[in-house]
């Protein structure tokens, strides 16, 4: 009994940081309607800045002073980010906002690497709170008790700020009706900056407060953002008490999980989330949120058509070139083309739901990695013949997408994006934690193709046939009745429902189809590399595809493929740069702000200016 109580206290103590970060995210969303994917980065900055300040400032006063200063510093950084990046895109479609915050993640990651180096930092112990207190005979770290005491104080302070001050009143008013607040003479720009700074400061404090229990490292940003999304989704977007309840729930559950089911801690919170969502789709204390005010992926394009004769000729010429490549190219080039094709198929499958379906998925890696793992597990554990295992990659990924899609399709906009991300984290945590089956981060190795394919040239042709076949199939479907129905649901869901289209079912089928195609790409990937690791399921993998689709252009059919080819090609030299994330992040932010139509879209528009007829002329 005493042990259980001690576990409960550990959970409560862990809730502090989670609640701080989640409440900041919630606050920012309530007023600005932007889900700040970079919120984990502010948490990480809080940890690093905190460590640095604690080293500089001595004693107990220095320790707590450092924590206080850290929040202020991170708040300032947040204000800077808001003024430089977000302020320009409040009127942009949701996808653009999310992608921009992802650009911020990359920039902060490399800046942190530059300033603090790649080494993990251990947090200093809190002065005077080093030992344990015994509660019912069980040792409980003193700092835990302090955290447990602090969390309600923070909740109260926030509550006071929100309910009793003019700023809080304006924040709540703006959460309900921003336009009206503006019409009453309040300059929203500064209100938004202030709220963003406050939310960032909360994340910074979260990062600094957890230092004595953890430390600072460069993976913190992604590690916490999944949990924070779970907390916010469970508690309800925009609700501070909701965030508090959910943070406590998740942390306590986690503490018990660590003690009794150590391989399931990460999975457990997603199970809770799924259960809450079935009962209350908008969280415990949340309200219904509508999709982005300015659309999810931008204004729909003009009618799309398959390529005219010139386009077809170009495509055929490219395919002939690729087919003839093994005759004269070096093996290195073949490998590169295999990589490009796999990534292009993966990106095209995301483009299918994102561009054609208007569904902003932030967890597409679940299906790529899911397919790869499905095939690899079959080979690794039961020595399934490669052909059969390979077939299972798209099948398993499709079934997985059907299941995840069933939860996510019911919600739209930012909820959809957050949920897909959270579910992909669930799949990742399975691969990462279920060591007896997946071998965790040791990965599954020696997954090689069948003998008749186990050479560069045959595998090259397999990849080319299936990869190009997959991409062309997706393109064909876009022009088929199903693709039209999918677009109808994106352009005007209301009109689509009013003409007999079951938009939810169409979207679910599309989601599963895209999942299966991503799984196919994953299958091709695993047998080309001979191994698979949890990294293939990470958030960064999902973002890679997203960025590629975005850079290529959401609204152009070739966007995904062009973007993927471009990225894979430049990746080789880009990743040789020490700070390539910084460069990429800045490029992303610049593209969001300067050329929102993406590379292909912008080129097309420029070409359209130069000559009146366009590439994709009607038939």
């Amino acid at each position, binding site marked *: 009994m005493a042990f259980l109580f001690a576990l409960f206290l550990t959970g409560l103590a862990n809730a502090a940081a989670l609640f701080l970060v989640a409440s900041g995210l919630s606050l920012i969303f309530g007023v600005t309607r932007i889900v700040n994917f970079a919120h984990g980065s502010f948490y990480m900055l809080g940890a690093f800045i905190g460590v640095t300040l604690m080293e500089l400032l001595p004693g107990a006063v220095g320790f707590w002073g450092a924590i206080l200063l850290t929040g202020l510093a991170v708040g300032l950084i947040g204000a800077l980010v808001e003024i430089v990046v977000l302020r320009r895109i409040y009127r942009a479609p949701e996808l653009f906002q999310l992608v921009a915050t992802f650009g911020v993640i990359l920039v902060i990651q490399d800046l942190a690497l530059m300033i603090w180096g790649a080494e993990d930092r251990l947090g200093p112990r809190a002065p005077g709170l080093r030992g344990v207190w015994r509660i019912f005979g069980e040792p409980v770290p003193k700092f835990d008790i302090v955290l447990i005491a602090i969390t309600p104080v923070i909740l109260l302070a926030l509550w006071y700020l929100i309910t009793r001050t003019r700023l809080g009143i304006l924040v709540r008013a703006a959460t309900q009706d921003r336009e009206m607040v503006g019409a009453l003479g309040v300059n929203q720009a500064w209100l938004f900056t202030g709220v963003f700074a406050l939310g960032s400061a909360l994340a910074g404090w979260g990062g600094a407060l957890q230092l004595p229990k953890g430390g600072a490292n460069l993976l913190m940003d992604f590690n916490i953002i999944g949990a924070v999304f779970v907390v916010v989704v469970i508690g309800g977007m925009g609700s501070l008490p909701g965030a508090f309840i959910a943070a406590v729930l998740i942390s306590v559950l986690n503490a018990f999980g660590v003690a009794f089911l150590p391989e399931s801690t990460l999975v457990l919170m997603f199970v809770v989330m799924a259960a809450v969502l079935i009962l209350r789709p908008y969280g415990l204390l949340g309200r219904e949120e509508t999709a982005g005010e300015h659309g999810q992926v931008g*204004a*729909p*394009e*003009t*009618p*799309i058509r398959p390529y005219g004769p010139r386009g077809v000729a170009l495509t055929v010429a490219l395919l002939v070139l690729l087919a003839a490549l093994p005759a004269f190219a070096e093996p290195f080039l073949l490998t590169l083309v295999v990589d490009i094709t796999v990534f292009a198929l993966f990106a095209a499958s995301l483009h299918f739901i994102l561009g054609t379906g208007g569904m902003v998925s932030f967890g597409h890696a679940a299906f790529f990695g899911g397919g790869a793992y499905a095939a690899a597990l079959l080979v690794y554990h039961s020595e399934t013949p490669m052909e059969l295992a390979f077939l299972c990659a798209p099948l398993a990924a499709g079934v997985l997408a059907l299941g995840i899609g069933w939860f996510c399709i019911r919600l739209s906009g930012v909820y959809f994006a957050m949920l897909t991300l959270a579910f992909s984290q669930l799949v990742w945590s399975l691969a990462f934690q279920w060591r007896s089956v997946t071998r965790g981060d040791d990965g599954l190795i020696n997954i090689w193709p069948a003998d008749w394919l186990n050479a560069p040239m045959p595998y090259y042709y397999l990849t080319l046939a299936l990869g190009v076949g997959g991409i062309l199939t997706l393109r*064909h*479907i876009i*022009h*088929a*009745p*199903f*693709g*039209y*129905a999918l*677009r*109808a649901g*994106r*352009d*005007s869901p*209301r*009109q689509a*429902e*009013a*003409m*007999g*289209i*079951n938009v939810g079912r*169409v979207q679910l*089928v599309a989601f599963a189809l895209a999942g299966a195609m991503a799984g196919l790409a994953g299958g091709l990937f695993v047998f080309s590399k001979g191994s698979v690791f949890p990294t293939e399921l990470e958030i960064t993998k999902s973002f890679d595809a997203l960025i590629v689709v975005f850079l290529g252009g959401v609204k152009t059919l070739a966007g995904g493929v062009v973007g993927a080819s471009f990225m894979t090609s430049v990746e080789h030299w880009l990743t040789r740069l020490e700070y390539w994330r910084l460069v990429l992040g800045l490029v992303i932010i610049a593209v969001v702000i300067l050329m929102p139509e993406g590379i292909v879209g912008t080129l097309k528009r420029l070409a359209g200016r130069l000559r009146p007829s366009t590439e994709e002329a*009607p038939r």
Partner: protein
Amino acid sequence: MTEILRADTLRKSYDGFLAVDGVSFSVREGELKALIGPNGAGKSTCFNMLTGQLKPSSGEVFLRGARITGKRPREIWRLGVGRTFQITGTYASMSVAENVQMALISHHRRLFGFGARAWKLYRAEALDLLRSVALDDQADRPCSVLAYGDLKRLELAIALSHRPRLLLMDEPTAGMAPSARIDMMQLVADVVRDQGLSVLFTEHDMDVVFAHAHHIMVLNRGKLIADGNAEAVRNDPRVQEVYLGGGTLFKEARDA
């Protein structure tokens, strides 16, 4: 004439506020009927309960005697009810003809087709429908470049594509120039006559209403205060009061 649509004591409340309070009426075959009323009278709420967009708090809706209360919009559409929206909801990423073809594909239950090229399906039928609203010369233009009045007519063609027996139109002329309004309603009246279908529409342009509606219903504060032909409605003192306000109430306010 037999009745095609009947609403029976429809009620809708939001947070204790009765937006629609016990409204009953019917629409008969071949009839062009208008639902009018001042802002906030409950027209949209009432209308959306007929189309399935909203579920009534109580009361029933019958289509040709069969209960359709609480059915989804897409189910009601499949029962042969077409509708248009106050703010047009066409598909901007499709051409004008494809917008109509989309409805035809849905009508022929081929939404889950993965093989065919969608723009080749039912094109002749779509062009016929576009001809009936005089849009056939713009069939291959992107929907996004159409003028507003043309979008409204395109919506009408879409609504007619599955040969409905009843058409529900929410403010069919909103946002159009006055002359275009008359043309638009004339078009609807012709369709009603030629195809023998029934139309229920909400409208704020009184010229349009009195020029074309066979019968007019007036809604005020969630209650139906008049239901009859143009002359009867025009002469109804309660209707006059709704539109012009009470006469004696404000004498003292001037002096205050």
